[in-house]
């Protein structure tokens, strides 16, 4: 994938990356949305949705509490969705390799958010006197600069990730040596373990939560029998 082919995907990554913190935090940056949108861009929404669901389960482990540092799923979801949706159907290594690319992107993109926040703080320091003086222009300029930089951050992360990971995943899929069912099973186990662990971490203090979980399992069992 060259620069020009990756550009529309990068623009999508920029928009969805912006949603994570800056604007409008409507969770269009969640992987289940971002990957499906990227899959639709490629012309294969079901593939985007599939990897989006796997990523969403893993993303349950990193909820954006307070000022904590966390991976950025907006751009990562777009990268994972676009790469997976562009692989030929039924290729055994496509899901694990695209998922690895998405997780690496999420990690790098999370770090880029830390850099961005430091850059905004540095600009704030330079305009502190004007802000303390109640300058409207200084405040609005700081705010718009922050949002613009965030948009550029998402664009850059998605672009670089696409240029690096798209050919890499293609090469990995070409020499993949594990059969399809086993490959998918490994991915699903990883996602289920992370999601289960994350939900336990969040909800274990809720009274009788396990009973509700087992009730849900019972509903699933009835559904499966039907």
């Amino acid at each position, binding site marked *: 994938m060259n620069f020009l082919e990756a550009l529309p995907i990068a623009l999508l990554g920029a928009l969805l990356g912006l949603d994570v913190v800056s604007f409008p935090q409507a969770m269009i940056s969640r992987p289940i949305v971002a990957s499906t949108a990227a899959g*639709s861009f490629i012309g294969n929404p079901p593939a985007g949705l599939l990897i989006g669901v796997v990523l969403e*389960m893993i993303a349950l482990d990193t*909820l954006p509490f307070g000022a904590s540092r966390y991976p950025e799923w907006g751009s990562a979801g777009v990268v994972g969705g676009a790469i997976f949706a562009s692989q030929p159907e039924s290729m055994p290594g496509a899901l694990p390799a695209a998922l690895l690319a998405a997780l690496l992107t999420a990690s790098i993109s999370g770090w880029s958010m830390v850099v961005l*926040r430091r850059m905004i703080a540095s600009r704030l320091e330079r305009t502190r006197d004007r802000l303390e003086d*109640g300058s409207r222009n200084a405040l609005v300029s700081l705010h718009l600069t922050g949002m613009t930089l965030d948009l550029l951050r998402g664009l850059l992360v998605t672009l670089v990730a696409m240029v690096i990971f798209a050919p890499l995943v293609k090469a990995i899929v070409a020499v993949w040596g594990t059969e399809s069912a086993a490959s998918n099973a490994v991915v699903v186990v990883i996602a289920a373990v992370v999601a289960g662990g994350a939900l336990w971490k969040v909800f274990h203090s809720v009274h009788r939560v396990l009973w509700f979980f087992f009730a849900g399992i019972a509903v699933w069992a009835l559904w499966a029998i039907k």
Partner: protein
Amino acid sequence: MGDQVTAPNTPFRLPVRTRIAMGVRLLALQGSWNYETLNGTGVGFAMEPALRLLPGGVKGEQYRAALARESRYFNAHPYLASVAVGALTRAELDGVDPTRIERFRTALAGPLGSVGDRLVWASWLPFCSLVAIGVFGAGGSPLLVVGTFLLLYNAGHILLRAWGLRIGLARGLNVASALGTPVLRQGPLYIGCAAALVAGFALPLALERIVGPGRVILGGIVATAVVGIFLLGRLRERAEGWRIALGVLAVFVLYSVLT
């Protein structure tokens, strides 16, 4: 306007255009989030359209003093920060003593952060994710899954922001009692129970759809996952699940490429 205590639930009128401007700016509250002032500058940015109503307008001394005051350090959940934005706007327009406003600002940040984190990040978001995953597992189309998630999540999101701004403007410095509302206090517990119920149903259903037909494989996956969740639970805060997932996946990809 003068230095006065805001009477609770007193009707308070702001021009519709100002309210809309504040509502839109609230969506960009964290646009300049940084490690120095956290979302303080965002609070000032969201309040700015209302502060123009102070005597003297944007060139007035009151406007400049209020904008400077409201753009300092503040930390709250981005959705519930709307409560602070509303209450502080009311206090500024009522001409409350600046020292009192600053004390109130400091006191409000903690509760708005912890209540919002519990209600939204730790309850509503995972619940909506699980519902969407369940719709996927039940065979939903991409549009249905994404539509369900976005509509459900944002119904709560927008309502919370709008409620926060309204209650803040209505109660001013007396807004603290609104944080005791049952939805904020008990909501996380009820949503937690609902999320656990949905998780029991949605996760196996989604796993089934991803793996495809074959009960032996699914049985093996569920058994391995249960052991994995137990081991991850033992690690508690010492390790992040997604980092472990990244490591395991990298090893698996390497193995599959080399064999």
